[in-house]
C-alpha cells in the first residue's frame, strides 16, 4: 500500500512545488534563469552586501526556501527530497547573490551537503567569488559538537547572519556572527511517526504504536534512543535536560525559543510543550526574549517536535530583532 499524498508524480514533486512557490510569491522570489533549482530573493542581494546562500534537501519546508528574503538569506539551492542539491544550482545561487563582498554558504552538517557545497565553493572560487562556509550543528542529540547535525535551530543561525549581511557587515563579521549564533543554538527533537518520500510512498522507518524516537533528525535518521511515548511535560523535561547539559545556562541568561513541528504535530501540542518550556526556563532564571511556535523545519508529514534554545547576547539579540521579509516568514 502506498502512503497518501496529494501529488502528481513523485519524481516531479520538487519541481512542481517550486512552480507553486514561485507562483505564490512572485514579489519575494524568483529562480535564476536557466537554473530552476536556484531560488533568489527579489530584494535581498545588492552591491557591496555579503551574499547568504542556504540550501539542502527538500521536504523541510518552510526550511530552506521560506527563509529567502530581504534581511535573511539571499538565495537557496534546492535539492531533491532529503538530498543535498548538486553543486550546479549552488554555484548559480552564489553567482546570483554575489555583490562583490563575498558569499557565505550556510547549511546543515550532513556528509552529502558538505561534499556538494564544497564542490560548489571550489567552482565559485574559480569565478573569483570568495566563499566561506558555516555549517549548522545545533542538534544536541550527538555529544560531539563537530559531528552534530543541523536541524530546526538553523532558523536562528540563518536569521543572525542574514541580519548581519543586511547591515552591510563585512564577510569576516558576518561569518563571525554566524558562527557565534550557531555556537549558541541548541536543539533536541523527538519523532512519533515516520514520513514517506514522494518517490517511494513507503514509511521511511518503523516505530511501535506506543513508541517515540528521541533525538530523531529531520530526515528520519534514527536518533539516540527509542522510548515509550510519554507526556508532553516529561518529553520537554528530557529535551531541556539534554539541552541544558550542553548549553549550561546561567541565571540571567536570555534566550529565544523555537518549538517546532516536524510536520503533522499540531499547534495545540506545540503550545502545550511551550507551556512547559517556559516554566522550566522561568525556574532556571533564564529570561525569554521571543518565542516562535509552529512548523519551521519539517520532515514532510512526520509527527514529532523539537525545542531549540538560542542564547542571546546584545549583538545576537540585535540580529534577531532586525526586520526581515521572506515568503514564508517575517519578523520585526
Amino acid at each position: 500500500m502506498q502512503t497518501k499524498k496529494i501529488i502528481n508524480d513523485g519524481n516531479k514533486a520538487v519541481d512542481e512545488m517550486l512552480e507553486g512557490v514561485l507562483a505564490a510569491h512572485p514579489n519575494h522570489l524568483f529562480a535564476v534563469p536557466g537554473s530552476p533549482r536556484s531560488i533568489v530573493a527579489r530584494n535581498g542581494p545588492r552591491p557591496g552586501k555579503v551574499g547568504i546562500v542556504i540550501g539542502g534537501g527538500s521536504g523541510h519546508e518552510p526550511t530552506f526556501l521560506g527563509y529567502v528574503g530581504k534581511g535573511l538569506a539571499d538565495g537557496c539551492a534546492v535539492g531533491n527530497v532529503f538530498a543535498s542539491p548538486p553543486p550546479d544550482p549552488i554555484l548559480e545561487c552564489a553567482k546570483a547573490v554575489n555583490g562583490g563582498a563575498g558569499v557565505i554558504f550556510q547549511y546543515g552538517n550532513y556528509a552529502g551537503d558538505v561534499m556538494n557545497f564544497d564542490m560548489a565553493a571550489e567552482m565559485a572560487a574559480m569565478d573569483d567569488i570568495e566563499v566561506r562556509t558555516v555549517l549548522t550543528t545545533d542538534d544536541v542529540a550527538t555529544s560531539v559538537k563537530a559531528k552534530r547535525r543541523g536541524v530546526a535551530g538553523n532558523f536562528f543561525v540563518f536569521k543572525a547572519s542574514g541580519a548581519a549581511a543586511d547591515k552591510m557587515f563585512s564577510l569576516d563579521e558576518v561569518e563571525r556572527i554566524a558562527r557565534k549564533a550557531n555556537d549558541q543554538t541548541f536543539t533536541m527533537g523527538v519523532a512519533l511517526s515516520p514520513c514517506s518520500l514522494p518517490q517511494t510512498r513507503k514509511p521511511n522507518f518503523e516505530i511501535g504504536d506506543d513508541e517515540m524516537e528521541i533525538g530523531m533528525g529531520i530526515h528520519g535518521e534514527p536518533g539516540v534512543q527509542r522510548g515509550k511515548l510519554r507526556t508532553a511535560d516529561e518529553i520537554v523535561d528530557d529535551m531541556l535536560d539534554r539541552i541544558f547539559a550542553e548549553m549550561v545556562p546561567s541565571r540571567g541568561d536570555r534566550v529565544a525559543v523555537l518549538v517546532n513541528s516536524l510536520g503533522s504535530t499540531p499547534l495545540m501540542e506545540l503550545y502545550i510543550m511551550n507551556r512547559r518550556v517556559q516554566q522550566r526556563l522561568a525556574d532556571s532564571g533564564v529570561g525569554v526574549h521571543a518565542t516562535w511556535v509552529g512548523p519551521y523545519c519539517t520532515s514532510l508529514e512526520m509527527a514529532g517536535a523539537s525545542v531549540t534554545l538560542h542564547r542571546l547576547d546584545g549583538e545576537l539579540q540585535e540580529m534577531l530583532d532586525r526586520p526581515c521579509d521572506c515568503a514564508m516568514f517575517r519578523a520585526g
Partner: protein
Amino acid sequence: MTDITAARLVVMFGKIAAAIEAEKDRLCALDGVIGDADHGIAMSLGFSAARDALAALDPAADPTTVFNTAAKSFLNAVGASSGPLYATALMRAGASAKGKAALTDADFVAAFQAMAKGIQDRGKAERGEKTMIDAWLPAADAAGECISAGGGLAASLEAAVSAAKAGAEATKGMVAAKGRAERLGERSLGHMDPGAASAVVVIEAIRDAVAN
C-alpha cells in the same frame, strides 16, 4: 579479448542503470534502517541520468568523454552523498582513460581502481567506517592484484565482485563513522551499509557488461 570501446562503456552504463533500478526498493529499505531511506532513489536517478545523457552522445566519443558525461549527469541529477562520490569516481575513471581510443583489460582495471580512489578522496572515509568504501576498496584491490597476476579481465572483475560482497557483508559488523549513520553509533551495528550494498550491484553490473 578485444579492447573495450566507448560504445561498450555506454552499454555498461545501461546495465548498471537497469541493475540499480531493479534493486532500488531494497536499497531504500536498507537506508531506511540507518539513514534517510533514499539511497535507492539517488542511485537510480544518477545512473538513469547517466544512461540518458550517454544515449545522446556523439558515437565517435572516446572513453574519457563517456566517463565525464556520465559523471556530470550523475552529479546534477543527484546531489545527496552519492552524487559527488560517484561523480568523482567517474571523473577519475575518465582521467585515467585520457587519450585512449579504447581500453585494454589493464586500462579498464586501472579505471576501475581510479573510481575507488576517487570515492575515497571525495568522501575521506577510511576502511571500517561503514561506507561504500568498504566495498569499493577491497574490490579495487582484488581486481588490481588479479590483473597483475595475469588473471585477465573476467577473473579480475569476478574477484572484485567477491571482494565487494565480502566487504558489504562486513559492514554489518561495523559501527558507522561517516555519513548519516554516524550519529547512530552502536545502533548501526548489525545492518548493512546501503552504499556498500549498491556498490555490489554496480560492480556486478560492470562485470556482466564488460567481462565476456
